[in-house]
């Protein structure tokens, strides 16, 4: 026992007893603290805006559907729970004839939202979306479509698109150069 770090057995016992006393006093003090539990159905914690739960289809500031039925979300979806059929309006604007998300299969990864070029498909913090019957988890377009812009209130895809539609002709979009008259380029 020449090792100076080696304490006597009495010191060992005293040390461990005081360590235990520390632990017991800590738990005893905790007995009188207010529980930090949030009781869920009575108190619903406000969730961050970017929480990923139920998916919506938003509209642009003019009230038109943002979705242009490009199938990018459907392609990005790892569980293939998004399906749609694209079609075109008379003014040249594309939209989904039908749009279906199977929430029974959705894993709420948010890849569809990242893939969306028009900010149409968005995830909301509303996670209380449980059903007894799994077939009622299949949401059609009218269930998904909302009357607001979601997280991106001002963005309007067709103002930047450069496509002739109800939002303007060639050269009339934001940051678009005047249309070139091809005849003037002729040699």
């Amino acid at each position, binding site marked *: 026992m020449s090792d100076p770090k080696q304490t006597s057995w009495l010191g060992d016992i005293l040390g461990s007893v005081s360590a*235990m006393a520390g*632990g*017991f006093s*800590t*738990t*005893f003090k*905790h*007995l009188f*603290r*207010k*529980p*930090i*539990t949030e*009781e869920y159905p009575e108190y619903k914690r406000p969730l961050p805006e970017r929480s990923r739960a139920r998916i919506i289809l938003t509209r642009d500031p003019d009230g038109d559907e943002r979705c242009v039925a490009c199938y990018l979300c459907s392609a990005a979806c790892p569980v293939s729970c998004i399906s749609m059929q694209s079609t075109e309006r008379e003014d040249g604007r594309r939209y989904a004839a039908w749009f279906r998300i199977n929430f029974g299969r959705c894993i709420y990864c948010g890849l569809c939202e990242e893939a969306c070029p028009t900010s149409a498909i968005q995830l909301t913090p509303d996670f209380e979306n449980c059903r007894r019957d799994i077939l009622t988890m299949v949401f059609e377009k009218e269930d998904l479509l909302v009357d607001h812009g979601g997280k991106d209130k001002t963005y309007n895809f067709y103002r930047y698109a450069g496509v002739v539609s109800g939002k303007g002709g060639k050269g009339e979009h934001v940051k678009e150069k005047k249309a070139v008259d091809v005849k003037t380029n002729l040699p």
Partner: protein
Amino acid sequence: MIAWLVGFIVLIVKIAVVLGTLLFIAAYLVWVERKLLGRLQVRLGPNRAGKFGLLQPIADSLKMLTKEDIVPEAVDRTIFLLAPAVVALTALLMFAVVPFGEDITLGGRPIPLVISDINVALLFIFAMSSLGVYGVALGGWASNSKYSLLGGIRGAAQMISYELSIGLSLVPVVMLAGSFSLVDIVAAQARYPYVLVQPVSFIIFFISAMAESKRIPFDLPEAENELGAGFHTEYSGMRFGLFFIGEYVHIQVLGALLAVFFLGGWHGPYLPGPVWLLIKMMAVALVMIWIRGTLPRLRYDQLMAFGWKILVPAALINIVITGAFVLI
């Protein structure tokens, strides 16, 4: 004939009351434990079933009773079915020799408030707690699964090791009281409880009895996070419930024994005997819950080293010192 019949009826009533009380308290001890443990960990504990979650034990037992009683295919069927009953039964039987009050007189005949005052009650208790090991070891073995077997082996090793220190820690008490009968031991503590003269025995008995009832920090046989649920991994429904009941009855028996051997049994001022015994039992149970909320589980080698290298020698030294004092 009449006297015999009356005696028999009185005995049946006593057994019914004791069993009813034990099982009722066992159910509510679970509630107390979950609630108190919750508060120790700064959470609320069960509060949905009834006011303050008071109906939780009823909900739990309903759930257990209505669950499917699964017996896996590979098990040793007879032993598998019997093991939970052994655990619950031995725990309940131990209470048979615990005196819970002064003799009361009813219709001119004295009725002792103990189910059975046998003169080797202490040995009976050891016998029962040794039999309880079979429930754990055989339940783990008969399950025919690795986790259960490991839990059963740990249980057997732990409970046999700590039985030794329980036995040795009680020798000084027997020396002081001069009897194996729990009634005599309680009667001998009418003036002062033995914890005042035998603090070392008290601590050794408390620690080893806690190991015997497989509670944290000695819950190696069931160790959720290493063995699944240890010896009762394969059990479901009310058979699992029987293990559970056994554990919580064991806590009460431990409280009662601690009270009987060291805290003066049912002796106490003002209140009647059974109430005092109940208060002491509950105090011990609360301390055990507090310990559960504070200490982590021991490692297997620590457990063995603690039992064989610290508790047993300490108990032996204590016996020698007590013997010297008794002689003088």
